[in-house]
């Protein structure tokens, strides 16, 4: 494997670049903006863009779908049907109980949250989240162990890496029938999809991180008699953390995609948000469809933000961010 390949995997996808650019942008022109103006702009700017977006949404049916205006329901209709109509706090309380019951082992609370579009969507979203997080968990365990193994000897790395690249290049949809025939069409199959899709960024970035310590550091440890385990614990693992979290953040987003893809194809068991999207689409329930789409996006954003936050929490104190931050 060449150095360029390694470097490429470290580069976050467009979404994360954009986030970092936004974070650094105000620092570029410190002379022109005082702290106070900057605070205003950081709130007003996005709000203005949001307002423009809503305006565009209202205008879109007239601009693009004049003969089929029903395809783009106005925002207030979406808001009402998908988020407000029939929704009660009691339903949310039931959902919370369901979530707790799913998370805490050996605890079973018998609730069936239902009664509004919002709660249907949220329950489905929770099922998808469960699949995504389970898949992500196994991908982290397997990916980290795999990366540690590959970091121990060049020949191990060279033996496995081509297949990792291959795994990453295989279109996940092409694997769906095989996965289904092996693992059935329920929870397990969906989790497998998530593992496959989020495994590569974790293993690749963690490996890159593990191998990132320069020769001098290894020599320092060698001079003082450190063996493999000490070297791994005191040097390679801590050095790998920033890159590993970059990989984790990418993988978390991908596992949400994997879970929704899984929902589309593996219909057995409870429906995830992907199944609902498909149902709404088939029945031209545009308000519900928009609502479910928005919730799916929020889930993706939430995991991305969460793992970004977790990474900063763990490495923020010592890790040198890019210039300007």
């Amino acid at each position, binding site marked *: 494997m060449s150095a360029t390949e390694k470097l490429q995997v470290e580069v976050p996808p467009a979404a994360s670049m954009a986030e970092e650019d936004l974070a650094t942008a105000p620092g570029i022109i410190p002379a022109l903006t005082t702290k106070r103006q900057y605070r205003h702009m950081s709130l007003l700017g996005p709000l203005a863009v949001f307002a423009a977006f809503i305006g565009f949404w209202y205008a879109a049916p007239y601009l693009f779908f004049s003969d089929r205006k029903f395809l783009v329901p106005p925002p207030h209709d979406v808001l009402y049907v998908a988020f407000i109509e029939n929704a009660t706090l009691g339903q949310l309380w039931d959902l919370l109980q369901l979530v707790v019951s799913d998370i805490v082992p050996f605890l079973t609370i018998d609730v069936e949250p239902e009664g509004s579009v919002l709660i249907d969507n949220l329950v489905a979203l929770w099922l998808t989240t469960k699949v995504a997080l389970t898949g992500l968990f196994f991908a982290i365990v397997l990916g980290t162990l795999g990366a540690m193994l590959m970091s121990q000897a060049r020949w191990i790395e060279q033996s496995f890496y081509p297949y990792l690249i291959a795994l990453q290049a295989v279109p996940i949809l092409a694997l769906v029938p095989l996965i289904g025939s092996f693992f059935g069409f329920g929870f397990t199959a969906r989790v497998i999809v998530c593992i496959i899709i989020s495994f590569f960024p974790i293993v690749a970035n963690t490996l890159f991180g593990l191998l990132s310590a*320069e020769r*001098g*550091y290894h*020599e*320092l*440890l*060698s*001079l*003082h*008699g*450190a063996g493999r385990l*000490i070297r791994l614990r*005191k*040097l390679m693992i*801590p*050095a790998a*953390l920033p890159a590993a979290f970059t990989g984790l953040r990418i993988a978390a987003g991908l596992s949400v995609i994997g879970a929704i893809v899984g929902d589309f194809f593996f219909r057995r068991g409870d429906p995830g948000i992907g199944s609902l999207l498909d149902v709404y689409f088939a029945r031209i329930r545009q308000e519900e469809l928009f609502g479910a789409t928005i919730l799916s996006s929020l889930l993706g954003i939430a995991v991305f933000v969460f793992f970004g936050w977790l990474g900063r929490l763990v*490495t923020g*104190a*010592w*890790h*040198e961010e890019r210039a300007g931050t």
Partner: protein
Amino acid sequence: MTETAAMGLAGATRESAVAFDHVDMVFPDGTHAVEDVSFAVSPGEFVTVVGPSGCGKSTLLRIASGLETPTGGAVHIDRSNIGYVFQDATLMDWRTVKRNVELLGELHGLDKAERARRAQEAIATVGLSGFEDHYPKALSGGMRMRTSIARSLTLAPPVFLFDEPFGALDEITREHLNGELLRLFVDKGFAALFITHSIYEAVFLSTRVLVMSARPGRIVADIEIPFGYPRSDELRFDAGFAELSGLVSHELRSAHA
């Protein structure tokens, strides 16, 4: 080869802190880095090897420390406790100054209280008290190098190997740290083998300056620096200092002409 070095080899294993005995180094790719190098550093002596970049002088330290095995000859040195100061400070970003300085104690199994005590003392010695809880990213280049030296000091090694430790620093910081290093040298009484490409640094620090030729590196001159210790910064403006610097410079030029 000068007379001093040749004679110094007689009882090398017993009396010298480090002794190179006809050391030859040819790397697998065919690079002949070091050719027939013999010299010894006595306890309490500060020996500097000066030469241009890429002449194999760092290789000498790597051989002395055991990081490389010479293809010919031998090095006599007690490797149980060597202080090795790298060109780069090699601080771990995720450790604070204190935890960085404690690293070697950890690797050698010192208990927590002892590690902390030695780290505290070493940090005070290099003048970094108050910065114990800073992470390396908050330190200047000079402070990073001091932390690196403090880390080595915790094991109180009788021999120090310095691989161009101040090469990346600005001149003011470098001269300042030269003074501090000499203070440590006088205070702790270790033997030092120092690598640099700065003639003035070599003359200012050393009891002896060895001049190395271009690759394959050979020792072409062995120059005694007779100034006593402690040395003040004003020594740099002394006529004798200028004369010796000129001599080293002349040897370097004739070796690389």
